[in-house]
């Protein structure tokens, strides 16, 4: 192993252990649990709120007593065609003939939200609705029509449908796009979470003055790459932990679950559908290339964070400098997410070529486009940019961390290097 690589691994080892061998790393490792927990809590709250809002709402028909049974039967049949949140609000009846019943007054009654009230003859009903062109009013019109159609048709034998499930319907474009978006989101989230940590590590070294020892002992490039490698190790450990947890959780769930009741509940159907709808390049390639794109994205962003963060002297300055990079990265996420939802578009091509969005957008492309050779091209292109960003960041790092005073200027350095080279060449040997 060359001294450069050796020193790089020494720095990486130190950084890796400094993070992993601390109790706080456990909190970091379990951070997704908190995130998911908070998300679930928020989601459940919102869902409960939506359910209770839905339960409190109603539609009302002011009908002759003779029509109520027919309306109720038609309502039951029509509701079979709606699922979940698309179902219309519950139907309530008021007996017509009472002169005091005013449909407008009904919409203002307390205790529940009344979305629409239908009154008058079914052939020509009056529908008062809370929102113009609302779904509830349309539904009541549909209900009236259904009752009239039932009466005109007379007795009809009940339909006896035979349902057949397609076990594997091939790749769904929508699911593939969702997979692409998922890849963009996961890579973005992990990169942002972990690359930002490199800056605090650098702040620590600036604070405790270790940086000068490092700079004297090894090339700054190896310090820089070592830091990135150390944090990449942390990232890989983080991912491996959660893959293992997910796998373990899946196995335990499969062992504990009763297959018969699960099948009856249809609980696996959605997962089965998602798995059946493979990414265009296949699961193995998609996951593999996604991981490589994550590494490149991490190196790109981590190098930028390190280079810019090296200019900061205090934690406050680090936070201020990190903010524009984070905003930029959120912009790259938005670009890549838009590209994932419009594969093959000009926007998608731009996102795939632009260096900082390329890893995200290309990961999304692996979900929707089956060509694999293009990924080699993309990896090469991104590697060039990683090298370029690292080169520039090392210069910034050198100027910032060592505070060498003169500051780094490209033209000045070039001139100095040229002069030094000339002087060295002129030296007697």
């Amino acid at each position, binding site marked *: 192993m060359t001294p450069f690589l050796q020193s790089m691994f020494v720095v990486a080892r130190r950084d890796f252990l400094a993070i992993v061998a601390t109790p706080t790393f456990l909190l970091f490792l379990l951070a997704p649990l908190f995130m998911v927990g908070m998300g679930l809590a928020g989601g459940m709250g919102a869902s409960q709120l939506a359910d209770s809002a839905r339960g409190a709402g109603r539609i009302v028909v002011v009908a002759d007593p003779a029509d109520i049974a027919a309306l109720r039967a038609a309502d039951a049949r029509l509701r079979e065609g709606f699922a979940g949140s698309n179902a219309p609000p519950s139907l309530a009846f008021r007996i017509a003939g009472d002169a005091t019943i005013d449909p407008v007054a009904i919409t203002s009654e307390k205790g529940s939200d009344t979305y629409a009230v239908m009154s008058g003859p079914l052939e020509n009903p009056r529908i008062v609705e809370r929102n113009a062109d609302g779904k509830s009013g349309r539904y009541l019109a549909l209900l009236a029509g259904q009752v009239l159609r039932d009466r005109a048709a007379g007795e009809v034998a009940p339909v006896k449908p035979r349902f057949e499930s397609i076990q594997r319907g091939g790749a769904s474009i929508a699911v593939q796009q969702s997979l692409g978006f998922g890849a963009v989101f996961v890579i973005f989230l992990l990169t942002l979470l972990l690359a930002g940590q490199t800056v605090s590590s650098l702040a620590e070294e600036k604070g405790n*003055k270790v940086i000068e020892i490092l700079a004297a002992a090894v090339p700054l490039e190896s310090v820089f790459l070592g830091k990135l490698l150390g944090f990449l190790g942390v990232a890989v450990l983080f991912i491996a932990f959660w893959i293992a947890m997910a796998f373990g959780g899946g196995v335990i769930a499969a062992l504990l679950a009763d297959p018969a009741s699960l099948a009856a509940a249809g609980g696996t159907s959605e997962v089965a559908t998602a798995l059946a709808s493979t990414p265009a390049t296949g699961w193995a390639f998609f996951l593999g290339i996604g991981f490589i794109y994550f590494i490149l994205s991490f190196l790109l962003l981590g190098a930028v964070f390190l280079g810019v963060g090296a200019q900061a002297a205090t934690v406050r300055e680090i936070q201020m400098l990190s903010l524009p990079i984070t905003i930029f990265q959120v912009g790259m996420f938005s670009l890549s997410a838009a590209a994932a939802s419009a594969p093959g578009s000009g926007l998608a091509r731009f996102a795939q070529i632009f260096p900082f969005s390329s890893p995200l957008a290309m990961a999304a492309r692996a979900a929707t486009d089956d060509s694999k050779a293009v990924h080699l091209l993309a990896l090469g292109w991104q590697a060039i940019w990683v090298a370029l960003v690292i080169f520039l960041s090392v210069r910034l790092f050198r100027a910032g961390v060592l505070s060498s005073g003169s500051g780094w200027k490209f033209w000045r350095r070039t001139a100095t290097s040229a002069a030094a080279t000339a002087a060295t060449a002129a030296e007697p040997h």
Partner: protein
Amino acid sequence: MNDFSVEANGLTKYFGDYKAVDHVSLAVPAGSIYGVLGPNGAGKTTSLRMTLGIIDPDEGSSRVFGARPQSVRHRIGYLPEERGLYPGMKAREAIAFMGALRGLEWAEGRRRAASFMTELGLERVIDEKIRKMSKGMAQMIQLIGSIVHAPDLIVLDEPFSGLDPVNQERLEMLVRRERDRGATILFSTHVMAHAERLCDRIAIIARSQRRFEGTVDEARALLPMQVRYTPREQQDPATVAANLPAGAELRGDGWHFAIEDRDVEPLLARITASGLGVTGLSISRPALHDAFVHIVRQVDAGFDADAAEDAAQEASA
């Protein structure tokens, strides 16, 4: 084989408009202990940093073992002026880490760390975290870390500052032992006693420039011999003064004056011939401290004169 471990030529560094180091050259003989002396802010640390290639000079160049300093990093041990260790690391690990940076195996680094620490009486803190140590102890750990890989060149920037007398003594012992092992030692200090005891050669830097280079004796020889003379009692001061060199001054414990080496014997002859007698006589070389102060004051006086001249020119203009 190169006779010099370090050859720095015309090192110059600007910090903004301020010229921190002005064409400083150093030539450190292989296997010697070389001191870079100077008052605070003279440019010692910046000179050492440029010598080691940690920062780039604006002018000049540096060679270590005949090569670019960056290419022989593994043969160098460096203790920076601003001490730095990872507070969460244990002492042994910190030393092994610094050795590993220079290519030493971790296991060997740990073994040597324990050996050094035991030798220096620090065995009780081998597995103690740095953050729990005193500043002096941490400094000793860092010093061990800078020599654990048995470097051929050891560069110590103000190594004695912050150490108690016992640890200063230990450090001096360590420096001598490393020199005896064959290493070249280059260190900076503004405490002359250490330089006087340790250094084979010194360079004095003041106001960004090198003002002296040579051995300690050569530095001391810059000043004349210091004489304290007490004649027999009841001597007439005017008579005594007439027989002593110009500038002789009578203080409480006798006459004080300075003479050149060559004037020692004629002086003794004159005192004997004059019949003034001798109750006390000491002739001594000035200390390095005196030579250092003399050089620095000369430089400061030159600067003050230049400044006064500039002010006068400005006023007349």
